[in-house]
């Protein structure tokens, strides 16, 4: 057996061909999950009955498998007349699924902002929305840059689940090559390295943002 470098290189174009899909899904899902998660967190903070309902929803999402979400969105919704494309379902599924985790992360980030910040904001007459946009969100991001990076990497690594929707992403392509040739080491190594590079790129990007956000706090 052994590792055949030239065969490994020959698999690169095919696997790399799917990097666009993988990146597209990962990036939009990151934004989607962050958006939905932030919305959840805001609703939960508004308290009352809807706050409890949202809290249950967040726990429910966290407690259920992503595969089930993808399955329902793709195979079951059409029975109710809602037919979304595979990419849409993939992005939506990952966004919803990770929004549960991100809502928790946002919670920690907001809890760490001193209460005086929102009070000062109200004292100068800013509306609730303006307070969220201009005061809370930027400071929250600064507090949670590191765990946010954790979840962005998680989202990237969850893209192979889209195989169940027949979306051709990188890991799927690698497995296709492998099952054609029964040579697993080479394509999987290539896909593994590509995933690792993308994940490291995300970590680095998040670290950059973190440093920039922290910049204003340093002397």
């Amino acid at each position, binding site marked *: 057996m052994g590792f055949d470098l030239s065969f490994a290189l020959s698999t690169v174009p095919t696997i790399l061909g799917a990097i666009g899909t993988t990146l597209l899904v990962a990036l939009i899902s990151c934004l989607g999950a962050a958006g939905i998660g932030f919305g959840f967190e805001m609703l939960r903070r508004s308290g009352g009955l809807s706050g409890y309902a949202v809290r249950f929803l967040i726990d429910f999402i966290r407690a259920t498998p992503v595969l089930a979400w993808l399955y329902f969105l793709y195979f079951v919704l059409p029975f109710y007349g809602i037919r979304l494309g595979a990419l849409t379902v993939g992005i939506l599924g990952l966004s919803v699924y990770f929004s549960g985790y991100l809502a928790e992360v946002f919670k920690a980030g907001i809890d760490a902002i001193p209460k005086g*910040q929102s009070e000062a904001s*109200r004292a*100068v007459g800013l*509306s609730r929305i303006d307070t969220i946009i*201009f005061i809370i969100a930027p400071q929250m991001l600064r507090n949670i840059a590191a765990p946010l990076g954790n979840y962005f990497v998680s989202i990237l690594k969850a893209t192979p689940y889209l195989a169940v929707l027949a979306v051709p992403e990188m890991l799927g392509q690698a497995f296709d090559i492998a099952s054609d040739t029964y040579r697993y080491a080479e394509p999987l190594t290539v896909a593994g390295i590509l995933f690792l590079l993308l994940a490291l790129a995300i970590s680095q990007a998040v670290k950059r943002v973190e440093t920039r956000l922290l910049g204003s706090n340093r002397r």
Partner: protein
Amino acid sequence: MREQSPDMATEISGLNKWYGSFHVLKDIDLTVAAGSRIVICGPSGSGKSTLIRCINGLETYQGGSIALGGVKLGDNAKETTLARRDTGMVFQSFNLFPHLTVLSNCTLALRRVLKMSRRQAEDIALHYLEKVRIPEQAKKYPAQLSGGQQQRVAIARALCLSPRLMLFDEPTSALDPEMIKEVLDVMVSLASEGMTMLCVTHEMGFAREVADQVIFMDQGRIVEQARPDIFFGAPSHARAQQFLEKILH
């Protein structure tokens, strides 16, 4: 800049507030005439901050009323917003927005609340930063300033909205001795311009110099209210005597 209406009196009557079962403000009656300067002091936990915060609409209350320039504050959101616009608040711990520059700290409300253009807002902000004597710090971030400078920015930020009433909650207690002087100087000069001020502080020198009235609170009540010379000379209430002894030791 907006015109300051001359007859901006604050009228508090029968104010009562509970935190759960804890009665934190008890039957507070207080009239602050336009242009007057009142200092509030009293032991820790006596309700000084709570009173100030009620006036600024940061707290709800369960009984009594607060009127600003004749307009009664309801729990009606619109009126509360208006009230906040007419009062400026300076916190003990500054509460500057750490992610914004000094200038943006001052212009944010002007632009978002009063919908001014950036130019206009910055002109106003710089005017007040000059007034507190730190226009050269406009481009820095709060963390790059000393405590005294930060508190002066907080004052400028509050002044930008041309409040009719300025509320100070122990504005110097987080500061170094030298910086206390800086901030008090700014407050003295505001006072000399006729700004209406309500100030929680234990800086008795400041109280002597600028206050029309000193109010002493204890356990949620206004226990004594007097001219500073009278208050410092011979407080009539035992608790006030004891308190003054300690802080003037």
